[in-house]
């Protein structure tokens, strides 16, 4: 059962990473403009286009 002493904190640590990641997305303003972000992926980036 000693493996528990390793596995349990490990799984909690994984959970903490997820919380930290969420905190980062919140802080980085990724929920400020959900509609705009959804549309921005459709916009062509001018630099990506081959030179005409």
């Amino acid at each position, binding site marked *: *059962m000693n493996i*528990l002493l390793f596995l*349990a904190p490990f*799984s*909690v640590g994984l*959970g*903490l990473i*997820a*919380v930290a990641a*969420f*905190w980062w997305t*919140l802080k980085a303003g990724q929920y*400020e*403009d*959900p*509609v*705009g972000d959804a*549309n*921005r992926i*459709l*916009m*062509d980036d001018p630099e990506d286009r081959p030179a005409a």
Partner: protein
Amino acid sequence: MALTYEVAGRPDFSAFLRKREDGQASLDLLVRGARCAGCLAKIEREVQALPDVASARMNLTSGKLAVAFKGASGDPARVIDALEKAGYPAAPYDPTQAQAAHDREGRRLILAMAVAAFGAMNTMMFSVPLWAGLFGQELGPATRTVMMWFSGAVGAPCAIYAGMPFFQSAWRSLKARRANMDVPISIGVILTLVISFSETVLGGRDAYFDAAVSLLFLLLIGRWLDHQLRARARSAAGDLLALQAPAAIRLDGQGAEHRVPISEVQPGDVLLVRAGERLPVDARIVSGASELDNSLLTGETAPVAVAQGQLCRAGALNLSGVLKLEAVARSEDSALSAIARLVEAGAQAKSKYVQLADKAAAVYVPVVHTAAALTFAGGWALGLGAREALIRAVAVLIVTCPCALGLAVPAVQITASARLFRKGVLVKSGAALERLAEVDHVVFDKTGVLTEGRPTLIDPIPAAVAMAAPLARASRHPLARALAAEAGEGTMASDVREHAGLGVEGVIDGRRARLGRAAFVGAPDHGSGETELWFGFEGDTKVRFRFSDALRPDAARTVAALKAKGLTVEVLSGDVPAAVGRAAAEAGIADWRAGLSPQEKAEAIEALAARGRKVLMVGDGLNDAAALAKAHAAMAPGSALEASQNAADLVFSGEGLSAVAESYDLARSARRRAMENFGFAALYNALAAPAAMLGLVNPFVAALAMSGSSLVVTLNALRTGGRP
């Protein structure tokens, strides 16, 4: 309405520029009409192409464009021009009205929710073996204690962090010597944590760490929904107001125009008000003549002629000429302020309204806490031992969790608000919906509410209309426009000259003609008091056109619908009796009163309230603002003035009045769902509390029962407005 300005005049918007931390100037604009990726790309490209713009970022969700300039100053008018040319009308957005930009409270709630979710899941991971142990699976006492320690190590910090919004609110309310919903929640959570720890230390069987964290998670969902509802209403209301000409045009010594926020206008400033704009503050006319539409101030539909030296009130709409005025008061001291004070008094009365959830909490809290205390005392007296008795008492507190109160009502209200939002109705708060559901009497204002608030021609004679139309088409006066609208497309008179406050003159088919006031056209002035326009060729007979304010197309239907629901309907107006009587009769309303001052309207509402009536006031003018604030519930159309929108609980946009009946239906439906949820919660508690008292509840049953009951009330809330 977007700001109207002439490009040639190049008004100066620099008062709207903001200094950023790095010293560069930035500007916030509210852009209308942007919907898709194409719009987004076009707007940002057009604005970024301007020489002095460093960057432009459009937020499609809020419709706001943030522009950063390269230097410490920039030219906002150029940005607005560029947007206008691209097909997107824009208005400078006064950031002082946009307090919602940094929604700290919302972020804190969402982070607390994330922590609670993490805590609930990870505590549950250790609880599952514990639960299995309850059902006779092999779980030695040593392993059980280890699991309980793990559970506590993860659950307790999460519960303390996620519970902070509740603890703080409870503490604030206790300091004010009151008890709100958060007091029992805080007591329950803290007691649960303490008992669970002591059981862990003493090597006991029951630890409720997972229950404490999941309770907080569920309650935080409710709290966050409620916050979202209010934040969204606030920002949408802010947008409406930002579009309502937040600027005044100030003239400097050289006669150059500067657009400044209304709050910066000082007495003695010389202001310019063009036709179609509203007077920003109380002011005296320096030069120019025009007609003013006071309908939002007093409810009168007939325009009033004004000339040099006359004092005009803030909020009046300039109809025809260009006016140069000298401000005599600041915005806060203008005639509006008296009305604003009345509004404030009414709003205070409204804040005393006790919400449904708080009413339920007032019953729930003493009952549950008495039950828990009795369990402890009874258990101890019957020889259970202090420890077992305390565990049972805590089980009572946990299992009778106030989820129905904390989650079910916000869930119902957000569902109802979302449905109304899709119909173009903005709900300002959950309490507003509750009050709306209670009304039994509806009071309408006439101008702009029952009617469309703009004149239409009555009994038109086609030949006469066709004759006057070429001249009417050349004028911007609302009466002339109504005449032109009746005539349809056609030719325009030549050599047109507009005489401010009098009428318009021009040449039709080589003959000189005039359209306007009786004296201007040369007709005998009977002073009939009716809204009228005269037309005549020079030296020929004069024709009269009569106008009235047409009823909204669905006014009569809405009134009938409200009556069918058992509500009584009345009209209170500031307009003349003849006009009010006619509109009331057309709408099918027997009770009406005319010629009321703002004060009298508010008093009429108070008198109704004193007789025990719960009044819904629907109004748009400044003269309604006090009455709106005094009424039990209030609605205003989106075209209403700022003060009225602030005083109203619900704001509806669009042409129809049917929003009033629809909102009432939805409010009733929301209340029914909330009551059902309370009924369910009462039933659940009536079963769960005795079970906990008898010691039948273990941590597994508590976790199942709590999340199950929350799920049921939430699903029921989603039915709101779906079926009557």
